[in-house]
């Protein structure tokens, strides 16, 4: 792996993102309705006021012209102005990015810390009672609806026990570290559960494949103990399939967790997306979707680079 390769990949991402932006722009404009339709039921918004708003946001221009205007503001400026709030999109997005990264980041760290040992143990003791129990729990974890689990946790920890605040980012006017930790505990737990369940499955199956390889048998034959074999010889190779999934899941953090954020009143990107979608707030939608696309493209590059680091046989030049 060399710097030239990374640079080429990054440069290659530019036309890709450009193409994505064209597609996204076309798609949101093809969806029925427009940003001003939210006012349609409203008995006192006059057609003249609507016309004025339409002009002010350039919605009276042909769609290709709107695209060029949007592209210009995206590349050079503040990503345009939100039709709903009248504030710069960049400001809207950065305000929500912090809480989303905190929640998503913590959930992913938790997931990795728990899924890695679970998957490894499950594979090392495959077909044991422990493996079966973990398999069962994983499927349960994947199948549980997030909102339902969230409601149960709120019922238990906020109403019955009164230990944790049921929702929100911080106490009003407060916001000490401990206070925020109490607020993030339930949403992070809910968000990581399904991830733990699915990641541990990928790690297990990768591990099972590797453990059947000849070189593992050789390692045992030369007298290595099991932890050494698994940690030094098996794990690195077993991680390669899982890395793809983990990288994409990490990228999806930035798009926010819509359901978790809504149920726990978390001021994140996911909720901003839903609010903007409901109002067809084109500039904010475009900003959010481009951010999400950028994250996916970067995560793919990062995953490719991680392969090479994990497995010396994979080389890019």
């Amino acid at each position, binding site marked *: 792996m060399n710097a030239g390769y990374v640079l080429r990949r990054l440069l290659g991402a530019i036309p890709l993102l450009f193409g994505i932006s064209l597609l996204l722009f076309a798609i949101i404009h093809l*969806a029925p309705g427009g940003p001003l339709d939210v006012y349609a*039921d409203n*008995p006192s918004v006059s057609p003249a006021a609507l016309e*004025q708003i339409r002009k*002010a946001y350039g919605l009276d221009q042909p769609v290709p012209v709107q695209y060029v205007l949007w592209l210009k503001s995206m590349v050079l400026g503040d990503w345009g102005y939100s039709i709903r709030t*009248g504030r710069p999109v960049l400001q809207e997005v950065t305000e929500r990015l912090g809480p989303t990264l905190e929640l998503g980041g913590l959930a992913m760290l938790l997931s990795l810390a728990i899924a890695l040992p679970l998957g490894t143990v499950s594979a090392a003791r495959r077909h044991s009672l422990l493996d079966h129990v973990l398999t069962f729990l994983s499927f349960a974890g994947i199948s549980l609806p997030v909102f339902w689990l969230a409601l149960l946790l709120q019922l238990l920890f906020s*109403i019955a026990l009164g230990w944790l605040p049921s929702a929100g980012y911080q106490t009003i006017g407060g916001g000490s570290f401990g206070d925020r930790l109490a607020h993030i505990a339930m949403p992070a737990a809910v968000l990581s559960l399904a991830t733990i369940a699915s990641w541990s499955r990928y790690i297990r199956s990768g591990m099972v494949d590797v453990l059947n390889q000849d070189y593992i048998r050789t390692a045992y034959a030369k007298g290595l103990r099991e932890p050494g074999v698994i940690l030094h010889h098996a794990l690195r190779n077993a991680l390669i399939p899982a890395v793809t999934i983990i990288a994409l899941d990490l990228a999806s953090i930035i798009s926010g967790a819509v359901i978790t954020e809504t149920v726990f009143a978390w001021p994140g990107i996911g*909720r901003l997306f839903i609010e903007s979608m409901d109002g067809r707030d084109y500039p904010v939608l475009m900003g959010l979707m481009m951010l999400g696309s950028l994250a996916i493209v970067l995560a793919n590059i990062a995953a490719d680079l991680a392969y090479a680091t994990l497995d010396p046989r994979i080389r890019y030049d």
Partner: protein
Amino acid sequence: MTTEFSRRTALKGAFIGTAALATLRATPGWAQGRGGTLTAGLTYDIDTLNVYSTGYLGDVQAAVVEGLLAPNGQAEYVPVLATEVPTLENGGIVLTDDGKKMTVTYKLRPGVKWHDGQPFTSADVKFTWEAVKNEKFIAESKDGTEDIESIDTPDELTAICRYNTVAPDFASTLFTFGILPKHALEGKDLNTDPYNEKPLGTGPFMVKEFKRGQYVLTERNPNYWRKDDKGQALPYLDQLVFKIIPDSNTLMTQLKSGELGLVVQVPYNQAKQIEGVAGLETIKGPLLSWQHLDFNFKGPKSLQDLAVRQAIAHAMNRQTLVRAQGGFPEPIKSPVVPVFKDLYDPNTPDYPFDVAKANKLLDDAGYAKGGDGIRAKDGETLSYRIVVQAGRADDELAEQVIIAQLKAIGIAAKPDNKTGVAYREARYKGDYDLIYGRWITSADPVYSVFYGTKGANNGQGYSNPKLDEVFARLENTLDPAERKAHAAEMQKILAEDLPSIPLTTNVAVIAKTTKLKDFVPNPTNMTNFVDTSRWHLEG
């Protein structure tokens, strides 16, 4: 997840139900406890705190920014920053130019101060009109600005507004929403000014902190002009906090855990949860919205046949519809909901539930039942596409009831439900045969937008010149008796020509902690927070 309670789509004006009155009267003037924090839950993400550009009702703004007038709990206008409500009788309204124009004179309350200590004067009133009217200001609510020709301010406490027309609904717009501070906003760009995050008002509470997507923290205004009966300073509460909780289940959880003390919009299906929870109580009050089944006049030919529309009206059992929605809505027969005592005509003809009569109407009109039990005439089968807003559980339930009731008279209906903006587009462009939904009016209701030939909300393609003429008379008259007569004529025409079947009207379910006293529900578009200064917490 999000409730689209667009500011003026919602509830301008209503009265309190008798049950609510009983609750309120149980707590007369006790020794009012001072202080404390009340936390209210809001279900929407606030866009801006500027009353003129928000897309929502403006609950927070109502506690912070005041207008010249405001509707009280009975939807009657009462003076706030003005000292009296201008009327023809008290000389506040004078008709000019042979009754084609009018002049409204507001006498302003002396001694009122903005949150920053500056005095409130008639210059602020004039500035508000100019600022909202300004083309560069991108606002949703400019209603009323174009009707004013000029404003004179002969002294600091008098504002004379010269209207270029007779506007019976002048009180429900401009100056009622709120007055803008001239000294802080003159020459500023209202689209981007920090005012939108931290509005400067004259109200009982001042915005201390606005965390987007989280909460708005407001604090007691120490210089508030209103005093209680004993001459003590108001408001009683130290803090009023608005917490943004988009999920209605979480809203209920927070009420039960005591993290919230007030929720002004409890969904019907969750109201039952709150009943019986210690420390919480619910209050009910009617709303100005109503549910209706509409016909598309550009659609199937059979729907243009009055007999078919009448038969469908007789097929509707409103009691079943009410039960399907938890027993909360109330049956109606006119789009003028009974809340509007001055306009509602109890003699409006109605179509009682009568399946036999409905069947006979269709039989007589020549719609014969086919082998599948569905009627047809001249090759057209009575099989319709019915649209409701997908995801609204109450509406989808009602739709099922309507489909069953139509089937009983040999009419087939297939759901073609749509979400959000797609639903609205179908509704306004007439992409349906039958549509079930709700409309809402302001406290000064205007019906020509729904049923007028050129009505902005008329997606049905309905046109009745006789009705248009009644609308024109109704909407250009200030005299209450004349308005009542015109409104009765309108209701009669609507009932006889039947473009729409009014089915049910709604109640607002408000949940609050039992500690909160002197809370007066105000389900107008000025929200429940329009008069917060006397709220206080006991125990």
